[in-house]
């Protein structure tokens, strides 16, 4: 039972191999059949696996294939190729393969005109396989394989239209910034190995949990870990910070978020799948997976919450000033990921994963709908040239509106429940505080504002595109709109699995995930919690009211009286410029890191290598040469000179002998 879960990973990889090797010779229908088919099989297997999991007693909902085969055996290090399936991986696998499948289908239509059709699906399958490996791996190193694998696919797919210089640049930037994060992850794994003697999740978390108990003398057998660096409990802080550096890279958090907006150079289905729904959430998944370690390092938790809240807020403000429809969504993604980390930081891992799931639905939908808009507008992405698409693209409009309502947190839509859960936890958790709640609340308001700005600019008013484009505006084909509708359905109802008790729900989702976080909860500090739901109701009402006000402001500025928006922009042109240019962070990195590094490298090469080292070597050679050429002059070839020296020599010798 459940021993087939590794096949979930293998299926898309199979599609990758087949299409990668022979895809060029296949007809397009065959390529798409293989690509979509393999992902669909993975999805079906994930669904079956979920049901099998649900049959089990909640505390035994954990299945591990410890080892398919040994991967890296060396001394005490023994890394296995193994898989695990528990509620957390189940959720992730379903989201990845489910949303992934819909986006594959959507791509059939979206990429139909592209000449590199098979290459696109080859990369997409490789991505899906890597992402599934990431979420189903049973140890850190195998997770890391998926982790770097998705990074590779992200690189390949961002730069998919490689003849565009900007696309090639963006791909490279994504990979390198991710590598900086991976550097942290790598160090984290090494410290874990030397501390725990293993990289297997179960073994590491059990040791950490057991260590916690033996530390407090609360039962269980004595667990002693190795203090490699002599940091004591600081070891946990360091491990979790290292891992979190990895998460900031992959999940585009401050300070490593800069690659994600540029990643929009890739085809839109890529932005939907990789840069919204799945890959960028890997960091959240990883932190949630390591909840035991993070709870043993409360300082890191604080850091995670601060980074999450700060990212959520700043990215949202940057989203307000963007004109490219995909860039608005990109900043929105960064901001929403910040929410998820805020949840993790206040030890509400379940809420983070809940938001991860609903976000996957509505953000994938937003991107795909944006793609549909771009498709219909002959590749125009600038919202200033859009408008009035409501009647021309009704299916796209309605689905996108639903997603917007969801992300804005309008009651009953999926985003409402997950976002509200995070806001509530950031207020009430012992790791939270009112500051986090306020930042979260304000961000929610800004989110509603920029999303409705997008809706009004795109779908309402008059169309501002050139004539020839206007004539061509059309609704997208079925292969694109049907996935939109399915996702729209999920974006609406996806949150209903987690309706909180305050609203009469059973928080089923939280209970489902509970076994994964059970050990962590025992470690968690337990303070006093307010009785009843009064406070929760008040906070909920506050956020709903703020969101409605924001929508009204957006309505006034971008629908009713656009001149006010223009006025405001002029009045605060300085501020607008700063926000529009994303606070000049890219420029700062370019000036403070990239340029000095390249300059240093040139210096090392041209000065140190060529002048200093080679200068020494050549100088030595020159010295020997000049010494020898001096010596050579003695060899004149004239017999009389040799005779003279011979006689002198004899005289000196005799003198020495005689005078001794």
């Amino acid at each position, binding site marked *: 039972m459940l021993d087939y879960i590794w096949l979930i990973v293998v299926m898309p990889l199979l599609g990758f191999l087949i299409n990668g090797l022979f895809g060029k010779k296949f007809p397009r229908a065959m390529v798409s059949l293989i690509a979509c088919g393999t992902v669909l099989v993975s999805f079906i297997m994930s669904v079956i696996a979920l049901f099998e999991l649900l049959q089990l007693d909640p505390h035994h909902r954990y299945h591990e294939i410890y080892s398919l*085969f*040994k*991967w*890296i*055996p*060396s*001394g*005490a*290090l023994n890394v296995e190729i193994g898989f695990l399936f528990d509620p957390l991986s189940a959720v992730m696998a379903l989201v990845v393969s489910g949303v992934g499948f819909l986006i594959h289908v959507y791509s059939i239509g979206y990429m139909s005109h592209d000449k590199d059709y098979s290459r696109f699906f080859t990369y997409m399958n490789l991505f899906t396989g890597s992402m599934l490996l990431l979420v189903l791996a049973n140890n850190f*190193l195998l997770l*890391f*394989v998926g982790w770097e*694998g998705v990074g*590779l696919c992200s*690189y390949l797919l961002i*730069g998919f239209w*490689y*003849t565009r*210089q900007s*696309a*090639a*640049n963006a791909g*490279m930037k994504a*990979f*390198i910034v991710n*590598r900086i994060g*991976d*550097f942290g992850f*790598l*160090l984290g794994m*090494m*410290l874990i190995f*030397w501390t725990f003697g293993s990289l297997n999740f179960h073994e590491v978390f059990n*040791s950490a949990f057991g*260590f916690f108990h*033996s*530390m*407090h*003398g609360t039962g269980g057998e004595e*667990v*002693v*870990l*190795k*203090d*490699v*660096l002599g940091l*004591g*409990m600081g070891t946990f802080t360091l491990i979790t910070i290292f891992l979190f550096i990895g998460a900031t890279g992959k999940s585009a958090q401050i300070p490593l978020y800069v690659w994600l907006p540029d990643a929009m150079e890739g085809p839109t289905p890529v932005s939907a799948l990789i840069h919204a729904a799945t890959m960028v959430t890997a960091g959240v998944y990883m932190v949630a997976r390591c909840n035991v370690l993070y709870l043993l390092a409360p300082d890191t938790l604080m850091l995670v919450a601060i980074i999450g809240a700060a990212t959520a807020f700043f990215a949202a403000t940057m989203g307000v000033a963007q004109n490219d429809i995909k860039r608005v969504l990109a900043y929105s993604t960064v901001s929403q990921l910040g929410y998820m980390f805020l949840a993790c930081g206040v030890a509400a891992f379940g809420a983070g994963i809940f938001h991860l799931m609903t976000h996957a639905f509505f953000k994938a939908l937003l991107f795909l709908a944006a793609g549909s808009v771009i498709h219909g507008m002959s590749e125009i992405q600038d919202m200033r040239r859009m408008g009035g698409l409501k009647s021309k693209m009704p299916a796209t409009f309605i689905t996108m509106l639903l997603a917007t309502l969801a992300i804005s947190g309008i009651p009953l839509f999926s985003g409402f429940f997950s976002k509200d859960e995070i806001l509530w936890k950031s207020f009430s958790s012992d790791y939270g505080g009112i500051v986090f709640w306020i930042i979260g609340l304000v961000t929610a308001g800004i989110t509603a504002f920029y999303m409705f700005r997008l809706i009004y600019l795109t779908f309402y008013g008059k169309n501002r595109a050139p004539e020839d484009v206007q004539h061509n505006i059309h609704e997208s084909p079925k292969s694109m709109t049907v996935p939109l509708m399915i996702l729209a359905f999920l974006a609406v109802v996806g949150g209903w699995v987690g309706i909180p008790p305050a609203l009469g729900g059973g928080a089923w989702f939280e209970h489902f995930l509970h076994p994964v976080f059970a050990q962590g909860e025992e470690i968690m500090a337990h303070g006093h919690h307010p009785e009843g739901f009064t406070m929760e109701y008040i906070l909920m009402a506050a956020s709903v009211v703020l969101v409605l006000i924001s929508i009204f402001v957006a309505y006034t500025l971008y629908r009713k009286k656009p001149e006010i928006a223009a006025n405001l922009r002029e009045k605060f042109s300085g501020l607008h410029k700063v926000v529009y240019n994303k606070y000049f962070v890219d420029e700062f990195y370019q000036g403070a890191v990239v340029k000095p*590094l*390249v300059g*240093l*490298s*040139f210096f*090392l*090469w041209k000065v140190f*290598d060529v002048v200093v*080292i*080679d200068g020494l*070597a050549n100088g030595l*050679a020159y010295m020997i040469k000049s010494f020898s050429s001096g010596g050579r002059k003695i060899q004149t070839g004239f017999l009389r000179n040799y005779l003279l020296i011979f006689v002198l020599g004899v005289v000196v010798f005799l003198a020495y002998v005689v005078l001794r």
Partner: protein
Amino acid sequence: MDSSILTILTFLPILGVILIWLTGKENHSMIKIIAWAVTFIDFVLSLYIYFNFDAAESGFQFVYNVPWISHFGIQYAVGIDGISLWLVILTTFLGWLAVWSSWTAVKDRLKGYMVSLLILQTGMLGVFVSMDLFLFYVFWEVMLIPMYFLIGIWGGPRKIYATIKFVLFTMLGSLLMLVAILFIYFKSGGTTFSILELTRFCVTLPVSTQMWLFAAFGLAFAIKVPMFPFHTWLPDAHVQAPTAGSVILAGVLLKMGTYGFLRFCIPMFPQAFEQFIPAISVLAVIGIIYGALVAMVQKDVKSLVAFSSVSHMGFIMLGLTALNMQGMQGSILQMLNHGISTGALFMIVGMIYERRHTRMIAEFGGVFKSMPIWSTFFIIVALSSIGLPFTNGFVGEFLILTGTFGVAPVYAILGATGVILAACYMLWMIKRVLFGELTKDENKNLTDLKLFEKLVLVPFIIMIFWIGIYPSTFLNPMKTSVEKLIGDVTKYVKHTDIENEAEAFIPYNPHEPQTEEHADVRH
């Protein structure tokens, strides 16, 4: 057969030399076929050794031992253990593919070229199988001559400068090593050159003597590796060398340096090694970062790859200083990896050079469009070079860094920055060569790879993923030999073995006073 197989393996290329000698100068196809066949058989022979190799045995196998110059106690003694096994196979693998890759690239004086390659192969194999220090030194020097000709005759425009620099740097090290060898020989009584016996003798020497000897040997090897700051001969030699020369140079010759440390410096002078560990680690880490940074700003693809070698070889040296299983095994594996990945990179660069007669990055751009298959090979190999998981480079680098982290976390952290920098220089180069618009007319009509070129590259791709996904094939046979080496060395050094001696976590209990009790280390 078992006792003579190493001799056959080593001298089979000489048979090829004789056959080629008998062939007419103009009969190019015959010359190529002979060279191909001989190196292929050599490769198959090395696989025979692998299949008959006993992984449980830590000492030398396939040993063959006869007196050579008995007056001085010099023997013809060959043997192979888990450390040299893979280097021998790497040599025959690359030797075979190097001949193959020269199929169309070399037309001028082909006979001499193939003869040089074959003699070179005998020299390299001899170095790895010698169990006699004198024999080792003979092979070590023999190998220089064909390399000298390969660069000096078939090289690029600045071949004379490059080849003289290469020979002078190497000779400088070799001479000091010779002095050290003779010192050991006479000091030990002047009866034997056997490496095993001399090792037993050397470990008893006082530390101060060991230090001098280590330095003399170590300099020769450090130049060969090359370690920073002795690396400047390498880029020149690589840029000027013909493709096959670069492949062999990077793939095998550099490994002789690291092999020298493993076989001589570390086991013979363990106490000196302990003293030198900080210096070696620092130079290794500098090499990693320095090589990567300088690689980043190169304008010629080949010198970029050459500098990346400096960086990668730094990783190998760093792993050796860890003196634990992960570090050592990682280093040995990384020797293979570097040979495979860098060898493949040089071949790939050679293929575009044959078409465009330039390797300057600025001359390219958008080549993916005209040569998609070549580009795909290029990307895969580049990714293995930057250590993407499930490729060979990752396993090696991860083991090295993990091993190092256990004994010297700071060096591991600094070394790990090389992982970021590798991505920078490789991907930046890839971007400038392969991506963007096809702007130059010369690049628009490039023909993609021919069948034989694909056939040459496929073995590399197979090895890249094999080592990346199932490294046990490679780690297991070397395991006992490495264990023995570590065991022998740690007898003499107070090296802290973290696996057994690290401070245990003292549980901190906020409610009770802290206890001093150390519980058993969990494992």
